[in-house]
């Protein structure tokens, strides 16, 4: 980032400094390995979607916590966050990172418990990853269409702050209906829990500051057909059909 010696413009165009940080040429998601007992559903073969491809209102949600007295630098915080991401998640959810870690282009599975379905399955792709931030992009069918950026920085007083920032829309009309009756709350709790867990790892506590802004109040009716990929619906169908599958495939691992 800043602070590096300037390069000739031609070099910058050919070898941009951020080239290694971005996922490259992803057309459809591919899972390299599925851990024993995990469900690989609603991810393989799906395209990633950003906030422009979703259906519902567009939200920017920012959650941050100061890591006062931790002594950790932003780079140290992000390094730990990437390496231990699954440990900081809400109980009842499994974040199954690939063995190669959260490198750009990596795809992680998410298996969660939701009412009526033991194995709600979705995932994320690592869109961007550098020393002080990393970003997930969601696949078609995920509750949200958008980007989630995790970062750390030193504030004006020099305190290291950890932050999660989402730019999202509900992916389809069903999820949009669910936003005011629980999805917003689940999202808030998830990232507040994550930040508290991260702070606890660094030996600090504190309150998570949340800021929610509606960036675009319009619904994109042209995207209503996204419901055909709805991961909740497909996960429920998967659960209903579970008794018909061989026993080994059905058994989840905790």
């Amino acid at each position, binding site marked *: *980032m*800043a602070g590096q010696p300037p390069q000739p*413009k031609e070099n*910058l*165009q*050919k070898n*941009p*400094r*951020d*080239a290694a*940080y*971005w*996922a*490259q*040429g*992803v057309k459809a998601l591919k899972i390299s390995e599925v851990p024993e007992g995990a469900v690989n559903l609603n991810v393989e073969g799906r395209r*990633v*979607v*950003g*906030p*422009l*491809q979703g259906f519902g209102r*567009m939200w*920017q949600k920012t959650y941050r916590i100061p890591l006062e007295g931790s002594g950790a630098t932003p780079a140290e915080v992000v390094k730990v966050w990437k390496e231990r991401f699954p440990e900081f998640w809400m109980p009842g959810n499994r974040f199954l990172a690939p063995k190669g870690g959260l490198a750009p282009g990596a795809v992680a599975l998410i298996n969660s418990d939701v009412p009526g379905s033991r194995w709600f399955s979705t995932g994320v792709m690592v*869109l*961007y990853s*550098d020393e002080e*931030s990393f*970003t997930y*992009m969601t696949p078609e069918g995920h509750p949200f269409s958008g*980007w989630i*950026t995790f*970062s750390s*920085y*030193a*504030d*004006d007083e020099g305190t290291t702050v950890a932050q999660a*920032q989402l*730019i999202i829309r509900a992916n389809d009309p069903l999820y949009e209906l669910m936003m005011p009756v629980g999805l917003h709350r689940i999202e808030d709790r998830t990232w507040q829990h994550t930040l508290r867990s991260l702070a606890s790892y660094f030996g600090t506590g504190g309150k998570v500051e949340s800021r929610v802004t509606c*960036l*675009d109040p319009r619904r994109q009716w042209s995207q209503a057909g996204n419901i055909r990929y709805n991961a909740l619906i497909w996960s429920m169908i998967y659960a209903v059909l579970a008794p018909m599958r061989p026993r080994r495939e059905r058994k989840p691992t905790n």
Partner: protein
Amino acid sequence: MPQAQVTMDVRKVRDGVSVIDIKGELTAFAEGVLMSAYDEASDGGVRAIILNFEGLEYMNSSGIGLLVTLLIRVNREKQKLLTYGLSDHYRSIFQITRLDDAISIYDTETEALRAANKA
């Protein structure tokens, strides 16, 4: 907090069309600079804003987020957002993030201006 390592100069190239020349790094710290440039560029009934990325040296995912925020503002004002000067690398980022679904990309300023005039 680090300062924005970017400059954004605004040119009113034709009636109703402004170009913002972006030089430097597009990161979260560029938010104030970008929004000020947009305010200046859209002053006086502008119907199209063209972003010139020939001088873009670095962009992270927060920078892409800023472009979405800008796009929402542009749409709200019923303006059109176009770009030119993206290197192959940044074009591929526009594709993977699917920004190219909503922001038209052109090779040159002449082509972008031609498209802006049809807006």
